[in-house]
């Protein structure tokens, strides 16, 4: 069985990396790449085992971390008089820049979440339907096609799904009675001697009808008008008129 365990959710690779940095209380300017890369990759592997979608984006960042790690292991050889370019100075710089930019929007997103809650408290009203008085409605030129096109446009505009069976269900009054069904069953058995139980049910249109038929059969058994038998387990059930 494919079961899933809910783990912390990450909005993306930066989010995961960020949470690791925060969990480890790391100075973002001095990330111990070796340790963080190890933890990050462990997480990504765990996601894989849990059958979560390990998207390529997570793997890209894993590769980046490993690249930074290897760069940091290599000694930087400087020719005499050569100045270090900022980017070369620390292979982590680019990553830090990206992380900080991401963090900025993460914080903004949280602020938006708060504001969203606050401004959900404001209510608006529906637009009034403004109809001109002298606008005598006239159906002369309206066809069923107009109605069809109009509805189709509304659906397209509002992006709603067309569930015709909406949330309203009409209950139809069932017109079956046990007495009626007893008559029907007896009639049928008069003509064909034996009948399979399934045949009755196949003829019915609703659960209500099936139940009524079943009650009628029980009633007939009780009244000893019919016998019911089954040749073997799970075999079909046969109804037969009782003689005498």
């Amino acid at each position, binding site marked *: 069985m494919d079961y899933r365990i809910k783990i912390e959710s990450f909005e993306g690779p930066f989010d995961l990396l960020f949470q690791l940095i925060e969990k480890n209380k790391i100075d973002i300017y001095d990330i111990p790449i070796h340790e963080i890369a190890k933890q990050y990759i462990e997480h990504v592997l765990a996601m894989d085992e849990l059958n979560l979608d390990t998207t390529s984006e997570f793997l890209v960042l894993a590769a980046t971390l490993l690249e930074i790690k290897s760069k940091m292991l290599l000694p930087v050889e400087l020719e005499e008089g050569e100045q270090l370019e900022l980017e070369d100075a620390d292979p982590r710089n680019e990553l830090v820049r990206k992380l900080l930019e991401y963090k900025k929007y993460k914080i903004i997103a949280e602020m938006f979440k708060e504001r969203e809650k606050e401004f959900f408290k404001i*209510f608006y*009203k*529906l*637009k*009034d*339907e*403004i*109809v*001109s008085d002298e*606008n005598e*409605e*006239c*159906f*002369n*030129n*309206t*066809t*069923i*096609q*107009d*109605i*069809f096109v*109009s*509805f*189709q446009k*509304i*659906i*397209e505009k*509002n992006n*709603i*799904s*067309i569930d*015709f069976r*909406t949330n*309203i269900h*009409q209950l139809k009054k069932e017109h079956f009675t046990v007495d009626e069904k007893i008559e029907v069953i007896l009639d049928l058995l008069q003509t064909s001697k034996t009948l399979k139980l399934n045949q009755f049910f196949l003829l019915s249109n609703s659960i209500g009808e099936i139940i009524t038929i079943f009650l009628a059969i029980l009633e007939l058994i009780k009244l000893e008008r019919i016998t019911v038998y089954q040749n073997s387990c799970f075999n079909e059930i046969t109804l037969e008129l009782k003689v005498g």
Partner: protein
Amino acid sequence: MNKDELKGIIEALLFAWSEPLSIKELCKLIDVDKDEVEISINEMSDEFSYEKRGLQIIKMEEYYQLATKPKHHEYIKSLLEPKQKKGLTRATLETLSIIAYKQPVTKVEVESIRGVKCDKSIHTLQEKGLVEERGRLEKTGRPILYGTNIYFLKMFGLTSLEELPEINELDLLTETENEVKDIFSR
């Protein structure tokens, strides 16, 4: 709660509901006496007319509703969409098509689909005898269910509702939606 606060709450409730709201309901919602609500609404009505406000409170027996004043009708009328030459207005056509396809359906549902209040167009359709009430929904407010009737079929030359042109959901997906679907099916 002081009186100004009470008036503010009443105004907010009438605005948000935008249908007739009973005084009983108002008392229950705000948790104050009927007398207090009644006095406040009367005062508000006076203030609304004295201060030349754009709104008025309409009283219908025990029900109240916020509405615009008749004298502003000329301005409001210009907000309405361009008139169509002969035939149904778009408003009425839209309402009729929603009722035809989604029946039985409540006014609120039609309004939530159109995004506009639909009292007038439903009234027109009832008046023209194309739409009729079909019982009520067993939930708060027991809203009326609307459906089309045989005159509707007759007018549009249908023998039954099954003859309404079928709407194919797949055709309705826009390009972007299909693109998004592609992403997920990858």
